[in-house]
């Protein structure tokens, strides 16, 4: 419409204006205290005795863990800010899980210098791609607790990927496996026009940003 119409008295309810945290809100984002649920498909109800997590791809030997084996791995408790490309930012979210670095230590990556990408696969066919150096040198986890409680299915439980330095679609819910590959493969949203890397501080929302 040509004219700039404003709905008198309408303001977004989700926004919180807290000047104290301004420097923690990336450009174009606003703070929310809710935890919105964004799903691209049905929420799976996974029985823990059937849950597995595996690492495969262009590597000599992969890895497959059961739920109990996964819980035996050294875990970390972390508090991070998360940024969704739909513009909400949630501060100080508390998680517990296993660092991706810890998982990858179990894989022999020696002599596999050409492997540069991690493709995360989740239940329901969801995929997302992350440079391997990001999960090795920065911070990424497979988390199974949120705010001191088991991660609920609508937020990705039993376990999800958490890559807080990238937009939150990279933090795949209902994680099933990592594929380690030489060539990059854009995932579910990356192939639909979203940015291949997704750094919220550079506002890399869409392809070409």
């Amino acid at each position: 419409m040509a004219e700039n119409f404003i709905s008198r008295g309408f303001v977004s309810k989700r926004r919180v204006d807290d000047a104290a945290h301004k420097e923690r809100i990336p450009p174009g984002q606003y703070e929310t205290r809710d935890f919105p649920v964004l799903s691209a498909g049905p929420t799976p109800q996974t029985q823990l005795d059937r849950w597995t997590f595996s690492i495969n791809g262009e590597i000599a030997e992969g890895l497959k863990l059961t739920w109990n084996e996964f819980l035996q791995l050294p875990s970390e408790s972390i508090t991070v800010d998360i940024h969704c490309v739909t513009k909400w930012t949630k501060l100080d979210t508390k998680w517990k899980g296993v660092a991706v670095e810890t998982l990858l230590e179990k894989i022999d990556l020696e002599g596999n210098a050409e492997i540069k990408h991690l493709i995360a696969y989740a239940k329901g066919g969801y995929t997302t791609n992350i440079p391997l150096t990001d999960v090795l040198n920065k911070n990424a986890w497979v988390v199974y607790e949120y705010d001191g409680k088991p991660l609920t299915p609508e937020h990705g439980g039993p376990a999800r990927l958490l890559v807080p330095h990238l937009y939150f679609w990279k933090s795949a819910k209902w994680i099933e496996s990592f594929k380690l590959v030489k060539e990059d493969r854009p995932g579910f949203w990356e192939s639909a026009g979203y940015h291949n890397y997704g750094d919220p501080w550079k506002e890399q929302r869409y392809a070409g940003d």
Partner: protein
Amino acid sequence: MNDNDLRLDGNAVGGLLGEIFQFEMTTAQTTCAGCGAIKTVAELMLYRHGMGAILRCAFCDQALMRITCIRGCYRLDLSGMSGLQVDADVH
């Protein structure tokens, strides 16, 4: 909240499809490339939020349509369907 609460009918995406297509699309017939089910768009399961809309087969959950609108450009991934039949008379 359980998963059921997030699922809507394809009917609810009629407005978005109406931006893209000339014809009434909620009554268009789709064929699922996964299981072969033939259903109208209105009968597909819709998952929609700020990133885009995904229409899935009610029987096998295959994603039939993925729609994003980014900077005035609609992108449709229809790789999950093997057929789409649109009635040119229905408005």
